[in-house]
Structure formats: structure tokens, C-alpha cells
């Protein structure tokens, strides 16, 4: 992983230096000084707080978050005591309060810091600076941020069209998706159609797919340990609708500890994933979102190949999944949506010296209805029903219901496509 390390440093250093020198003192226009946008307001960062809470009920005996850890091929791999915070409790839940600060830093960078405060403490979701003046369609970003692969990964929870994450994301990357410390370079190609390429190098600290275990029997891999690449294409320039297609892939270091029957097996190796995403949005032109429609879908395949450290042989596995969802503005300010998901169409694992095991697939169907009294508040009702393949314990069906309330105070946010 040394090449990753040095190339990342080189890339970041060169870009930043070039960036600063490339912008000679351009004549600038003094900001408007009307009665309301005084100097104080324009220098302060935009501040907003988004509160996300929900009432939740699920009907399984075992507890759905526990079931998800047991899911054949996806579930727990040794350390089960860690991710307690991911579980939703029946009853009232305060997901988190998201505090966001953003501003132009200077003539060269813009920056954003986003802290998610929950009852268990505060967590830095994002803290990054991004260049604003690189030439040739380039843009560089450094800090902690959401990877821009796929479509839903880069979105904050309040931007999702459903109250919960797609199953494949939750099972592969955990509740935060791929959110890590690193650098990103993206390039808007000078083509007549929208074509955006991105490369990211991350520390590789994901809680599910890019784990570094603490054990004397495992090598200590230096960071950065994860590389991601993606491309997005918007081939048409329709007046009322937009279609965006994407491809992505990532590869990085991963470790697992398996404890079975008193024996401890330590594995170290590579996990990679690849997939495709598509999103279509239609703007009806009517007021209050009536008649607007979105369709989005993502497919995700992951493959791991880990070497046994205390012996010979390797642990290999492959899982996949997809979701497809659509929403439609049925009335002014009201949207209805449907989502269908499957995981484990490919679902296999092979441990050293054993036969390859094939596991079954799981599915989930969801329906939601949301109401937005204004741009700053939203109430959402959602029902999920799914069959979860728990391996030896068989398939279990579970219902879930959400009533979610999201509201935002402070600066008027702007959302990306």
C-alpha cells in the first residue's frame, strides 16, 4: 500500500501548490452592500441544524438489527459487540442533530464541517476543504467526506427518499456508508455531454468492509488503504428531465478475525467492490412538486480474498445486491414512493480447507408517503416488509414501520443533483 500513500501525498501537494499559484490576482467585484447583507453576514459561515427523529416499530421476535448481523454471507464476522449504536429501538428514536457550517475559506477553497450530534455523543460526519479555482475542469477535496461513488452514498440521511438506507448499503458499508478521511480528485471532461471522473484515496476505516483488527497475529497495514474510482455520465440535455448513469469500483485492505470452536483464525487481504447506478428525475414544472418524479437504482457487488495468517489457505467471499426506487409528487407537497431491494443474488463464502458455501437471498419491499409543509420540514410515513435469509435458522419475515420527522433551521441549504 506504499504506492497509494506516496501518490496521494504527491497528488495533494502538487495540486494545492499549483492551485494557489495558478490564480493570479484577478480583479474582484466588491460584495453588494445593501441594507440587509452587511459585512458581518457575508463573512460568517452559513450555519444550519437539521433534526431527524422517528417513531419506529418492527415486529420480529429476534430483533431486526440482530437478524441483519446474522444474515448468511453478510452478517457478523467475529466482533459482534461493537455496532450497538446502529440498532433502531421500537418507539421514539432521535437519529441525530446535524450541525453544518460552510463558507468560502478564501480565494482558493471552500469548506464545510458537519457534526452529527446524537444522544451517545458527537461525530464528525464531514470536515473538508475543496478547491474553487483549479483549471481544466479539475477539482480537489481533502478531509473527511462521503465518497461520491454511486448515487446515495454522498447524500446525508435527510436527503434520502426513504427513512432508511438501502439494504445493500447497510449490510456492506454500515449506517454511515463510505465516509472516511482522504483526498478526492475529480475531472469534468471537456466533452459535449456531462462526463465526470473521480478518484479517491481513503484511510480505509470503514466499520464493515475495510476493517483493521487489533491483533498481534495480523500485520499492521499503513494507511491509506482504500482507493475508489467512479464515473458519471449525463448523456442527454432534455428540458424537463435528466438521466445520469454511473459506474464505480473500489479496492482496499481488510482484516477479519474468526473465532470458531476455541480456534482463532486471523485473515488479512483485499476487499473490492464495483457496481453501477442510474438516476432519472422529471420536473413537471408544476408548483409545490406536484407531478415530479424520480427513479433511481444501484447495483453493488463485493468480493473479498483474505489470507489466513496463522496457517495456510484463504477466505474468499462474494455478495451482491441492488435496489430500485421511485417517487412521485401525487399532490402539492405530497410524495409517494416505492422501493424494491434484493441482496445475496450472489452469496458465497469459502473458508480454508472447506467446501464453498452458497447462501440464499433476501428481499425487502417498502412504501412511503411524505409531506413537506415547506422546504424546511418533512413528515414521512414508511412501511417495510422483507424476507431475511439467516442461514441455518432459515428465512424470517419482518415488518417495519416508520413515522419520521425532519426539520431544518438556519441557512437555506442548496442540494446537489
Amino acid at each position, binding site marked *: 500500500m506504499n504506492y497509494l500513500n506516496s501518490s496521494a501525498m504527491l497528488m495533494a501537494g502538487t495540486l494545492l501548490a499549483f492551485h494557489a499559484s495558478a490564480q493570479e490576482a484577478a480583479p474582484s467585484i466588491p460584495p453588494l452592500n445593501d441594507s440587509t447583507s452587511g459585512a458581518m453576514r457575508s463573512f460568517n459561515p452559513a450555519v444550519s441544524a437539521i433534526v431527524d427523529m422517528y417513531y419506529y416499530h418492527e415486529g420480529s421476535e429476534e430483533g431486526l438489527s440482530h437478524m441483519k448481523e446474522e444474515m448468511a454471507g453478510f452478517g457478523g464476522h467475529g466482533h459482534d459487540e461493537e455496532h450497538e449504536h446502529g440498532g433502531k429501538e421500537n418507539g421514539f428514536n432521535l437519529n441525530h442533530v446535524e450541525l453544518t457550517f460552510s463558507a468560502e475559506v478564501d480565494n482558493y477553497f471552500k469548506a464545510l464541517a458537519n457534526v452529527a450530534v446524537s444522544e451517545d455523543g458527537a461525530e464528525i460526519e464531514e470536515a473538508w476543504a475543496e478547491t474553487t479555482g483549479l483549471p481544466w475542469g479539475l477539482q480537489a477535496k481533502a478531509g473527511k467526506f462521503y465518497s461520491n461513488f454511486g448515487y446515495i452514498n454522498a447524500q446525508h440521511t435527510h436527503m434520502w427518499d426513504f427513512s432508511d438506507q438501502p439494504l445493500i448499503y447497510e449490510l456492506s458499508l454500515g449506517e454511515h456508508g463510505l465516509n472516511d478521511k482522504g483526498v478526492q480528485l475529480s475531472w469534468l471532461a471537456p466533452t459535449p455531454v456531462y462526463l465526470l471522473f473521480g478518484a479517491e484515496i481513503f484511510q480505509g476505516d470503514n466499520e464493515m468492509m475495510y476493517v483493521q483488527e487489533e491483533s498481534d497475529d495480523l500485520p499492521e497495514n499503513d494507511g491509506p488503504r482504500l482507493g475508489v474510482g467512479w464515473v458519471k455520465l449525463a448523456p442527454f440535455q432534455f428540458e424537463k428531465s435528466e438521466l445520469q448513469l454511473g459506474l464505480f469500483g473500489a479496492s482496499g485492505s481488510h482484516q477479519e478475525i474468526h473465532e470458531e470452536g476455541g480456534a482463532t483464525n486471523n485473515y488479512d487481504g483485499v476487499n473490492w467492490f464495483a457496481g453501477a447506478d442510474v438516476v432519472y428525475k422529471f420536473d413537471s414544472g408544476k*408548483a409545490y412538486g406536484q407531478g415530479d418524479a424520480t427513479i433511481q437504482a444501484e447495483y453493488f457487488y463485493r468480493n473479498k480474498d483474505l489470507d489466513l495468517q496463522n496457517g495456510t489457505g484463504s477466505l474468499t467471499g462474494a455478495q451482491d445486491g441492488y435496489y430500485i426506487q421511485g417517487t412521485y409528487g401525487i399532490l402539492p407537497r405530497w410524495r409517494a414512493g416505492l422501493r424494491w431491494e434484493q441482496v445475496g443474488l450472489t452469496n458465497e463464502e469459502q473458508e480454508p480447507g472447506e467446501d464453498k458455501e452458497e447462501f440464499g437471498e433476501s428481499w425487502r419491499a417498502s412504501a412511503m408517503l411524505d409531506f413537506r409543509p415547506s422546504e424546511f420540514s418533512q413528515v414521512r410515513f414508511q412501511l417495510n416488509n422483507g424476507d431475511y435469509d439467516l442461514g441455518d435458522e432459515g428465512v424470517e419475515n419482518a415488518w417495519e414501520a416508520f413515522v419520521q420527522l425532519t426539520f431544518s433551521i438556519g441557512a437555506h441549504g442548496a442540494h446537489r443533483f
Partner: protein
Amino acid sequence: MIYKTGLLLLALSASALSYAGKLNVVTTTSDLASITETVAGDLANVSSICSGNQDPHHLQARPKYVMMARKADLWIRIGMDLEVGWEMPVIDGSRNRKIRPGNPGHLDASAHVHKLDIPDAGILSRAMGDVHASGNPHYLIDPDNAKHVADDIAERLTQLDPKNAETYKENAAAFSSKIDEKMAGWKSAMAPLNGKSIVTYHKSWIYFCEQFGIEIAIELEPKPGVPPSPTHLTRVIQTIQAEDIEIILQEPWYSKKAAERVAEKTGARVVAAPTYTGSDPEAGDYIALIDLIVKRLTE
């Protein structure tokens, strides 16, 4: 082979030359685009993000807009937070540093216009609905404001392209005199409405009504951005009956249902008129847009 490559290079450089001669201007709304076209004449390629049928409050930062912004030499916005939900993601996404706010390639058209509805900062609250801290952003529907905007655009084009300064200045001056000339006709056509009250759907007509001496008694929206509720419509009906109001005025993108329900009960006339150029075949440019609004209100 060499010959073919040579031809291709020649063609490429030719297209680059013709391209380099013209400024690329992207405006957020179509009325801004029309005024810019008038001021720039043949010296610029002008395009608008909003088509005229779209409400500029509620756009998404689509890849299409990023592509438009990418090649712009000048970006002109209405400002006053009208485009706050999508402008920066489009500019960031375009990686075009020329058009970032604060640079000569970014023009806020509201700089010198006459503003209305500036809320008292002491009581400003989101409970007031979709109000804008720096005032009501629908200022361009007042032809006097359009003259200020044309002057600002001419000044900025001059800064970016000094050799054509005279043309820009002349075109802006011609636009202003055209407005002055037309104003007499518009005023006399609108004379029967002078001093009268009307009802509008959204608070997007206040500048126009002030210019032509029309009172706005009440809006169909109980608060800006909140769709009409039955209780509020009852109040609208009472107001219309009490003040003998004859006209309910709204933009084409709002449903006519609420207005028609009120009209049925009161006998008022529902007038749908565009506020942006290009949303109606008759509103091809800014002057034609005002002509059309006047015609719809007075026919």
C-alpha cells in the same frame, strides 16, 4: 492522412476563432437572458437556465445546468436569494472559476434595482413563509427595474469586452428609451385598473402592480410558498366581495383550481399571465412579455 489531419486542425482552429470572438453569457432566468440579448446584440451567445415555464425557486442543480455554466464567461443571476437552492452547486460543479461570486464573470442583477418588501430584520422568521431577507426578488417585472438591469449588464459586458463598450452602452440606452416609449402606451392601456385592487396567487406581482398603480388586496397563498387552504380561500372570497375585485392574476405554473373556485363564487376573472419570457409564444422578449401581461389584464 497528413492532409486530413491538417484539414481537421484547420477546422478546429477556425471554430475556436469564431468561438473566441463571442462572449458566452448564462443567465438564471429567461427575462434576464432577453435583456442581455438586447444589450449584447450579436456580440454574445446568451442562454438561460430557467426556460420561462419553470419556477426559478424550485430547480435542481442538474448536470445540464453544469454543462451550461462550464463555458460561461458571464453568469447573471436575479439574486436576493431567488436561486439559493441550486446556484452554488451548479457553479461549483462547473469548475468555472470565472463565474464564482466576487469575480467579474458573476453579476447580481439586483444591485441597483428598486426593492420592495424588505422584511424588518427584527421580526424576520421562517414562520412568515418563503420570504427573502433582502426583499421580494420578483423585481424584473417592473420595466423601470429592467432599465437598471440593462445598464448593469452593459457595464459588466464592457468590463469583460472593452473594445465593444460603445455598442453595449448604445444598446442599453436604446433599450431604456424603448421602455420609456412603450411605458406611455402601457400606462394608458392600464389606466382603467389604476387605483383598483386585484388578487394574485403568489407575491410575485408587487413590482408590476406598484408601477401601474394597482393595489393587491390579498394573495391566494396564505403565506409565500404555502398553497391555498380552504379557510384562506374563504377569506379571499370575502375580500373580493367586500372590495368588488374583478381580477385574479397568476403565473401559468400554478394550478387554476383554487382561482376558478373563487371565481365561481365571486364572478372575478382568472388571468394567467407569464412573468418570464419564453413561457408563451407571444412573450418572445422582455418588451413582448410586458405587452402580453398588459393585454391579458385589459382584454
